[in-house]
């Protein structure tokens, strides 16, 4: 097993899971980043969703909150050894970005509403959230502690 901490990057509409001592990071604009972490087994992941609900025949489940979150939770249990009871969630992003994004103008808010609804249905507690605004988020998950370092553009780093 590789014990040297590595940082893995999560792309837009994608998800990654890793164990301590590794880190995960992503950048978020109007998208929402859902960080799930199980402190008992020190396993965590980031799901980077783009839209609240799946439309059409798109096979990429992780782009959408309604298909991505149940899939992500199942993967964390199956492949990471996490348990639903000890899993906790932190959510970030959902900013209002460029107005040229057309219909995507208020998508950040809709994304957040859908994520909160699904996490409640799944029985997973949100222990921290930093959402909204007009600037991007740079988040880094440390799977050794479950801490998330969050830097909003132009602001100091905060730990959640």
């Amino acid at each position: 097993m590789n014990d040297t901490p590595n940082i893995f990057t999560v792309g837009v509409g994608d998800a990654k899971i890793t164990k301590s001592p590794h880190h995960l990071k992503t950048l978020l604009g109007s998208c929402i980043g859902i960080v799930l972490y199980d402190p008992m087994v020190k396993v965590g992941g980031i799901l980077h969703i783009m839209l609240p609900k799946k439309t059409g025949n798109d096979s990429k489940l992780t782009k959408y909150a309604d298909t991505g979150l149940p899939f992500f939770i199942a993967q964390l249990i199956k492949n990471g050894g996490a348990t639903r009871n000890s899993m906790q969630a932190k959510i970030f992003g959902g900013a209002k970005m460029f107005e040229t994004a057309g219909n995507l103008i208020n998508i950040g808010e809709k994304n957040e509403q859908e994520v909160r609804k699904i996490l409640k249905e799944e029985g997973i507690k949100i222990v921290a959230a930093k959402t909204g605004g007009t600037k991007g988020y740079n988040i880094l998950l440390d799977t050794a502690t479950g801490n998330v370092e969050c830097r909003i553009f132009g602001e100091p780093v905060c730990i959640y």
Partner: protein
Amino acid sequence: MVISPERLRMLEIIMKLSIDNASRALSKTLRTGAKIGLSKIYMADFNATTEKMNNDTREMTGIIVNFKGNLGCKMLFMLPLEGSIILTDYYLRQPVGTTKEFNDDTESVAQELGNILASHISNTLVSDFNAKLLPEPPQVHNDFAGIIFSSLVLEQGILCDQLLLIESIFEICKTEISCYLFLLPELASLEKLLDAIGVQK
């Protein structure tokens, strides 16, 4: 959607012409050279590209222009935040260092540079493609490079996992400023235009 190598080659020629026109216009506006350091056209996987760009946390100024008409397209001109402050002084013909921070002047200059680039790119595409391209007012946003890039590709990424990207880098002479220009044509309307001008599939 996959675009054939023949069509990519044809597009590369047309796009290089339009980017060359844009760089000349930029040089004239700033009264210093804007040398093209790289220019390429390629099909990109949405996930792989955004994953790579999400590593880029440099503080940048992004100018996005949406084109309407029979060729849907987006343009992103992105430069380091401190670079946009220096270019404000170039544009306003004042000594470098006069502008100390990003302000209303810097934002106006960024919008103006976006307008100049968009109009020169669209002029070339209109004449070579017989396309109708109407640039909308530029939107300026300061943020991490990866966030600005994601804003460009997000809408197309929802519809399709593949993107056709045209990427150029302009080096501004007498400075160390590198500016990035991305064009993101909408694939379906682009294919129709290529059909209309008889480019082999």
